[in-house]
């Protein structure tokens, strides 16, 4: 409890809000991954975590470090850009591989 960085009230509350929202949305996506019935339905669920969840936690991190270092810290955008670009590629490749498998293995 003592190692949390000392932030002004507005920054601490905004960081807490964004991080908590991002983590909750990620958990909802992973519950979908756990509960949905077929593979083609399941493949949609974790994208909640890779878009909104990652975005929320990265915005919280940007607010926290920008206030801590009193300058704009924008390198989190690197992760956001990379995850946003690579997730559709990954899922398209995975679904295409599944479509090409024999029906008994789909």
């Amino acid at each position: 409890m003592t190692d949390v960085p000392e932030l002004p009230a507005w920054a601490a509350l905004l960081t807490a809000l964004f991080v908590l929202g991002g983590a909750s949305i990620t958990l909802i996506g992973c519950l979908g991954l756990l509960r949905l019935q077929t593979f083609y339905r399941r493949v949609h669920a974790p994208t909640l975590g890779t878009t909104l969840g990652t975005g929320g936690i990265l915005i919280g991190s940007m607010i926290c470090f920008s206030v801590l270092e009193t300058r704009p810290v924008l390198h989190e955008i690197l992760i956001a850009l990379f995850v946003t670009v690579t997730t559709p590629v990954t899922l398209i490749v995975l679904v295409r591989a599944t479509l090409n498998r024999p029906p008994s293995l789909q």
Partner: protein
Amino acid sequence: MTPTVLTSAVLAGALALAQILLVLAMACAAFRMLRGPRAQDRILGLDTLYVNAMLMLLTFGIRTGSTVYFEAALVIALLGFVATVAAAKFLLRGEVIE
């Protein structure tokens, strides 16, 4: 209790709760990776697991206030993409590098 202490406690509680939620999400992904009925389910679970691990490292970074964790998260994001695409390519063709 001064307002700064109060908001610090709120931030600490929110970060701890976020980490618990991320651990639950990682457990769901790990279950899907271990028990997935087909190979593609396991690859999807692995993909979700590394994204969740990256988010967990980012929350650790906010909690300790150091930017070292950010670089680890960036490396996980880069290598996880390559790993998932390689596994999917293996599923598609039976070999990774032709």
